[in-house]
């Protein structure tokens, strides 16, 4: 059988569409140059020894460093504990939300908890952890009178990361639980199983691959996290911070490259298992859309303790988040609380170039976000709706970016662009410019946008676009008049997510930023490192304000200009 002619014709039809071809070429070039190439150069660099010979000498050198091997075991330990903790808390929240009757107040708490990590910078919880439980923490020192409590180290990181990442698990597991057909559980109840037995023999086994999935997602997030270990880790170094110190402290770029390769290998492995094994299994065990609504558990002996437990935890998380804005109004944290003052904000803007920091962060993110949103919609469109040879490549690379920790990408960009592409000087001018920072922002937010774009597009009947194509529209017209209007909501939220992710990003950017740019996140990190928590809080408060208003604006926008509800019911 020869498929030659069909393939040749498909190719010819594709070529008849110059805009599409150009888009695909530009995309491939972008993905290769800014995602694949930096990772490739890391590999090359770490296998070429200082004398220029090919071999394992660099790896041998870093594995001889005791602090590196400790960092590996530290990272894995934290990742494991955080993964387990987040899945358990997430499951509790998800179960209570889906199965137990809740009043409006508790429902509201749950919503806030799920939203908070989205709008807040990554290290807010570390800051508030130190401010609440540290040496001069309000709770430890003032309420309990403990003067030497140390939050730095393993437990600090583990607690803060668990509180940061469990909402992600909660949202994932909620989706899964909602997809379990209640009649399965009712059938088990009907045959005489107790509620506990139903959970252990029906719900839990159905959920198991999903739990594994959530665990690995959190695990990857945890080992890739840079900001929290940086602020609250103290001397407890993880891989991400070790790599950062190897570059900024020891100026050992080859060593850092090799370390980055190790970190990348770990996350990639986890990512592969998660993506290709567990995700498929999760989908396979789902029974599809629930045929009818689930009967809530109204039994007070179950309902009251679960609701109280979850509400207390939710309140605690919310307290941790509001602690930062409140802290920025205290004259001296831990010593003097009254009268409330605006002096830290004043200092931010007068002495510490606050205005420039906000302008730089804002402008760079503002440029990056529409590009990211548009790119991710184009990628989703190509992946879901078109078929061409390079499609697999585009999909794989944009998903790969999801598994790449920011620190690894940062090192890759340093190695890849500081001396030009392949150290030839080509594109060297890019290094240190705002353009490169914008590109880093784009690469960092692209996978999230693409993922949401893909799932939005999958819900749209393929024949809607085909019909437009059939009526005589070319790909560009189809995309502009049909695809984009139909996924407007997804595009808008992609826009804001990209903006929020960019303006709160730190892991990759901290390695690449030059003195000419002041970024808020980098400032917060610096002040927190120095122990000026009030200043860090003031910076963080303004950052939260910006991100929160972006999200609010988006919601208003979607409400008035988004796809109308009526159309949505069609899908």
């Amino acid at each position, binding site marked *: *059988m*020869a*498929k*030659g*002619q*069909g*393939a040749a*014709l*498909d190719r*010819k*039809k594709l070529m*008849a*569409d110059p805009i599409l071809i150009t888009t695909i070429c530009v995309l491939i070039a972008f993905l290769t140059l800014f995602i694949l190439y930096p990772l490739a150069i890391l590999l090359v660099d770490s296998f070429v020894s200082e004398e220029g010979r090919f071999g394992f000498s660099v790896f041998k050198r870093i594995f001889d460093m005791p602090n590196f091997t400790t960092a590996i075991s530290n990272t894995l330990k934290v990742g494991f504990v955080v993964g387990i903790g987040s899945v358990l808390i997430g499951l509790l929240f998800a179960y209570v939300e889906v199965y137990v009757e809740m009043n409006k107040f508790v429902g509201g708490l749950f919503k806030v908890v799920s939203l908070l990590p989205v709008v807040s910078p990554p290290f807010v919880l570390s800051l508030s952890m130190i401010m609440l439980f540290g040496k001069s923490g309000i709770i430890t020192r003032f309420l309990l009178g403990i003067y030497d409590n140390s939050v730095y180290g393993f437990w600090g990181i583990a607690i803060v990361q668990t509180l940061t990442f469990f909402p992600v698990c909660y949202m994932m597991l909620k989706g899964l639980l909602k997809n379990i057909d209640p009649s399965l559980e009712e059938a088990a109840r009907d045959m005489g199983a107790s509620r506990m037995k139903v959970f252990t023999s029906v719900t839990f086994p159905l959920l198991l691959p999903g739990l594994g999935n959530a665990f690995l997602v959190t695990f990857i997030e945890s080992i890739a996290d840079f900001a929290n270990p940086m602020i609250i880790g103290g001397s407890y170094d993880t891989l991400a911070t070790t790599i950062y110190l190897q570059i900024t402290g020891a100026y050992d770029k080859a060593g850092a490259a090799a370390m980055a390769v190790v970190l990348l290998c770990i996350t990639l492995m986890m990512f592969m298992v998660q993506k290709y094994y567990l995700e498929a299994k999760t989908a396979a065990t789902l029974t599809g859309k629930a045929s009818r609504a689930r009967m809530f558990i109204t039994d007070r002996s179950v309902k009251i303790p679960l609701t109280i437990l979850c509400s207390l935890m939710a309140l605690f998380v919310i307290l941790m988040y509001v602690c930062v804005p409140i802290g920025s109004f205290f004259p001296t944290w831990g010593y003097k609380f009254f009268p409330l003052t605006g002096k830290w904000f004043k200092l931010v803007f007068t002495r510490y170039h606050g205005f420039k920091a906000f302008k730089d962060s804002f402008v760079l993110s503002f440029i990056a976000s529409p590009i990211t949103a548009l790119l991710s919609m184009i990628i989703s469109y190509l992946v879901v709706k078109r078929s061409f040879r390079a499609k697999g490549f585009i999909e794989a690379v944009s998903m790969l970016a999801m598994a790449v920790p920011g620190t690894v990408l940062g090192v890759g960009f340093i190695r890849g662009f500081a001396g030009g592409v392949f150290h030839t000087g080509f594109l060297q001018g890019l290094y240190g410019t705002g353009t490169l920072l914008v590109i880093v922002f784009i690469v960092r937010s692209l996978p999230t946008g693409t993922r949401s774009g893909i799932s939005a597009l999958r819900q749209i*009947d393929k*024949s*809607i676009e*085909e*019909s*437009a*194509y*059939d*009526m*005589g*529209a*070319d790909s560009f*017209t189809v995309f502009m*008049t*049909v695809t984009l*209007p*139909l996924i407007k909501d997804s595009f808008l939220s992609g826009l804001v997510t990209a903006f929020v992710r960019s303006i709160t990003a730190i892991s990759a950017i901290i390695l690449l930023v030059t003195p000419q740019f002041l970024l808020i996140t980098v400032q917060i990190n610096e002040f927190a490192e120095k122990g000026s928590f009030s200043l860090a809080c003031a910076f963080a408060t303004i950052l939260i304000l910006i991100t929160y208003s972006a999200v609010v604006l988006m919601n208003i926008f979607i409400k008035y200009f988004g*796809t109308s509800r*009526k*159309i949505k*019911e*069609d*899908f």
Partner: protein
Amino acid sequence: MAKEKKGVTLEHISKIYKDPKTGKEFYAVQDTSLTIEPGTFVTLLGPSGCGKTTTLRMIAGFESPDEGEIYLGDEPINELTPNKRDTAMVFQSYALLPHYNVFDNVAYGLKLRKLAPEVIKEKVLNILKLVKLEGMEGRMTNQLSGGQQQRVALARALVIEPSVLLFDEPLSNLDAKLRVDMRTEIRRIQQEVGITAIYVTHDQSEAMALSDNIIIMNKGVVAQMGSPKEIYYHPNDKFVADFIGEANFLEGKYLKDEGEMAILEIEGNEYPVFKNKDMKKDEVYTVVLRPEAASLAEKGGLPCEVVLSCFMGSYQNYHVMVGNTLVKLQEFNPKHKRIYEVGEKCHLVFDPESVHVL
């Protein structure tokens, strides 16, 4: 619409797909040649997976044939993309643009052709009148019933005045009664416009009601092409006979000729059938007997035993055993006829001219 009508010709078309599970390649459509005359209504009919939709999508341009060439009129169109082909398709799911109202949906193709707004308006209103949707142009598509949505889809395809109209199972999402109304409507409009139409369906009554010609497909190849009558009365093979309507198959050995009749030995009894082809002596042939062509009698014909007898209102439904062969038959208007009960012995009779020898 004073446009020249065009036919469609397929020359040795094949399409190869890969089974996603086994990775094996197979022919979805194999070496298919067809000629569809200008202005005719042709149906591609077959069970699911027979290659009918693939064939239609190749004509529309969404799939590219792996072998062979497709012509629209005299022009080869293999290399043209769907938007450059002079065809318009009506989709199974209607595929209306949900963010546009009825008018904008219908006007979409005209706007792409950059016609003047007043021309567009005139054409759209005319076509909406043709599909009986006057006054609905301001509605959003989700405010319409399924049948109305299907009319919009049809209007949208008609308004760009294509040479060929393609239908991909357009009625399968409608309920039974609406389906019957809509197919009459589609036939009326096609006749009024005089356009060439190619229609894919798995519903034989739809195919019968609509078509000038039916093309029956099975496992990627054309099993038979012909008018509904030809296909019903003179099926090429067992598959076609069984697929269109109900069919009983009687096996009989050819003994001799008797005038225009051939005498077959069926389950040990001699019975004459009309000789519709050359037959060889002592060979066993299969005879197609339609349920409505047979009846039961006290004597004559083939002896049989009743195994099911069921009153259906307009007819009495029988299953009888003729030797080892099960025959299903229907006696219409049974009110004043003798009803045979289960277990009764009787005789199966049929007109020698109303059967078809395969």
